[in-house]
């Protein structure tokens, strides 16, 4: 049987997919608080913006992250339409290495203007040793590898997504 074709998420997803974040009267299935910071002293934040080909932050993207290692299975979802500068922010714990791979989160990106979603990954700047030997990171052209690595600032990691152009983020065909 043929796969059902994808269509864009469009500009109006928020009241169904991220309703509480956007203050609609409908319970959210998922949000960006993947672990409770009050109960987890090792909570990290991962924040960033999504840029279009003209370098403008995209105000109507939806980012999903999936963290699956031997300790945790955590899912997060955040729209870029409510925070200052059209940021997304996730609260989670740092993923751990699986089978010697560098730790990462899987990312799924949706937006108006994308008829089909994109996949990328978030790796971590402070995992120098594992990043150096990681099979996936090493399969990426060396001058684009940094687009997959979040930069660290205390307990916060910055990860920007650039949809198009010279500095384009690496997207995966999975």
């Amino acid at each position: 049987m043929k796969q059902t074709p994808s269509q864009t998420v469009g500009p109006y997803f928020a009241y169904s997919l991220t309703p509480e974040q956007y203050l609609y009267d409908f319970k959210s299935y998922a949000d960006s608080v993947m672990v409770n910071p009050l109960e987890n002293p090792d909570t990290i934040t991962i924040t960033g913006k999504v840029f279009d080909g003209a370098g403008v932050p995209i105000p109507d993207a939806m980012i999903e992250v999936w963290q699956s290692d031997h300790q945790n299975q955590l899912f997060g979802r955040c729209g870029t339409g409510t925070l200052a500068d059209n940021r997304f922010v996730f609260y989670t714990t740092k993923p751990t290495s699986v089978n010697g791979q560098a730790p990462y989160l899987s990312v799924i990106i949706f937006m108006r203007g994308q008829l089909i979603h994109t996949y990328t990954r978030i790796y971590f700047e402070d995992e120098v040793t594992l990043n150096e030997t990681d099979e996936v990171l090493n399969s990426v052209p060396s001058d684009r590898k940094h687009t997959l690595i979040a930069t660290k600032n205390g307990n916060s990691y910055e990860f920007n997504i650039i949809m198009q152009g010279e500095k384009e983020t690496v997207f995966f065909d999975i």
Partner: protein
Amino acid sequence: MSQIIYNSFDREVHPPYLSPDYQSTVLRAPSKPLMVLKQSLSELTGPVFGDFNLGEFDNDLTKNALKNGQPLGERIVVHGKVMNENGQPIPNTLIEIWQANAAGRYIHKVDQHDAPLDPNFLGAGRCITDSEGNYKFYTIKPGAYPWGNHHNAWRPNHIHFSLFGANITNRLVTQMYFPGDPLLQYDPIFLGVPPKGRDLLISAFDLSLTEPSFALGYRFNFVLRGHNATPFERQ
């Protein structure tokens, strides 16, 4: 243990990133080729939805936002099954939907189309497929609405669907259209799908699903990416 590899997107039916008639794709489509990724644990797993407490009327948009009466418009019931490419049902798939009201207006704050909101209609719902992969929504047939893509651009009637199957390779966001809609031939979002895929996005009117004196019935099935092997069986 056999290695399960999920199939790729079938590019014969999925739209490309860049589709210039749909103007917003021009600055948002990746310009470099995608990197092929060997699937590992995070691709072969996904969130489990069984523990989410669905609200009583989450799959009934005619009842889940009542304030002072009934929503206006034509009541419909949409039935369907979620399957993989081998036709096997996919249970426990989270399905989330959103749509315009009967007048073609979304409740989203960004939608400024000059058509009335309906105080008794939110336009959002969700459900989880049963053990046979089946789902059902009651709703109101959404109206067509104008958009700014080009002169006199109108979106055909549609319901937005988001599906999350067993893992992240199964993720699908799409739109369900209605049979015979004259706007389909002019819609660059629908036409962004290659010709082979277009009919797969059009629901079928079904008299056997139609509920007498209550709601017109439509059927819309989903096929998500399958895999190369039957799941590993413990020995």
